């Protein structure tokens, strides 16, 4: 009985000790998957980087303006940009994520047909811009206007939802590093989005990943681009501050 009590008392200590050491989902992957991500000629995400580069330089809209026409060379102009998103959007007076910003720029400045969330073109452009920050630490902006949405994201992260009545925190904080069936539960740091997921057989955004978890607990997912998703993205970015951007990552 005493031993059982001691184990019960120790268990939360072990878990909190594990949670203190933050690490990317990369560390939890099989060696083969890690090798796939690290080799740019084997990482399928690099196909979308190439696609995004072509789109970056391709004129669109009635003025025939390309992204490069205003921003110039992405390697210089977009370095570090993805690391600080989501950011505050002056025009919409709300937080906006990187894919949202690219879609907005395309619609309002290029006046080109809008790009839908999770469309190949928007994913390719977001991957290309994200790739320019690879190796830089995630550095969320200190803009005080983001604080309210970040807190909302934190609340959503801790809120139980769905028929399984589970919150994000119950798996990714309390059980991180342990197993859900055959898969290791990662700490849920969004270091490599958009990323190539072997299960999807394609590249996808963080919102698609969040949607997957929500349907997994049998909750009704939010719609793509909704303020709730951006709020969760904001909170996750602050939670992962300092970890390296890996875009395009590979995940099982």
């Amino acid at each position, binding site marked *: 009985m005493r031993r059982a009590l001691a184990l019960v008392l120790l268990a939360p200590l072990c878990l909190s000790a594990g949670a203190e050491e933050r690490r990317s989902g990369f560390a939890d992957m099989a060696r083969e998957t890690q090798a796939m991500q690290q080799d740019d000629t084997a990482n399928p995400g690099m*196909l979308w980087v190439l696609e995004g580069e072509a789109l970056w330089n391709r004129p669109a809209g009635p003025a025939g303006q390309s992204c490069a026409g205003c921003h110039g060379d992405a390697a210089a102009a977009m370095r570090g940009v993805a690391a600080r998103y989501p950011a505050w959007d002056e025009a919409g007076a709300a937080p906006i994520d990187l894919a949202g910003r690219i879609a907005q720029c395309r619609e309002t400045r290029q006046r080109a047909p809008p790009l839908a969330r999770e469309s190949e073109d928007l994913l390719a452009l977001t991957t290309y811009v994200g790739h320019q920050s690879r190796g830089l630490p995630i550095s969320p902006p200190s803009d005080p206007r983001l604080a309210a949405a970040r807190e909302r994201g934190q609340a959503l992260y801790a809120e139980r939802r769905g028929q399984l009545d589970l919150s994000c925190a119950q798996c990714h904080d309390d059980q991180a590093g342990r197993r859900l069936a055959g898969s290791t539960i990662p700490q849920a740091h969004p270091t490599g989005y958009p990323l190539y997921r072997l299960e999807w*057989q394609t590249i996808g955004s963080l919102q698609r990943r969040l949607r997957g978890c929500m349907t997994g607990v049998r909750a009704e997912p939010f719609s793509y681009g909704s303020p709730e998703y951006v709020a969760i993205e904001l909170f996750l970015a602050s939670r992962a501050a300092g970890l390296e951007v890996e875009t395009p990552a590979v995940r099982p």
Partner: protein
Amino acid sequence: MARVLLNIPRSVRPGEVVAIRTLIQHGMETGYRPGADGEVLPRDIIRRFTATYDGAEIFAAELSPAIAANPFLSFTLVATVTGPLVLRWQGDNGFDQTETREITVAA
């Protein structure tokens, strides 16, 4: 045109065994999956890959619906002469893509 990632050394020594690695963007739709409307999506896969080095076919592969999207294919060759390496992917719906890279053999 599908995007490709190729890892091919430009310059090699005579007799050297060279690893060629290829990755091509392709959905590899199996023909067994239902779409959003419940109808089975028609098959759309790459059927055959061939590699020709200096005019001779040195490697070929038949691909099946069980192969993942964006197929990664790797093979080795013995570099004997300076010449073009022609990689060709052929598939359903008239998919046909050719990439050519020069391999330079220098002592």
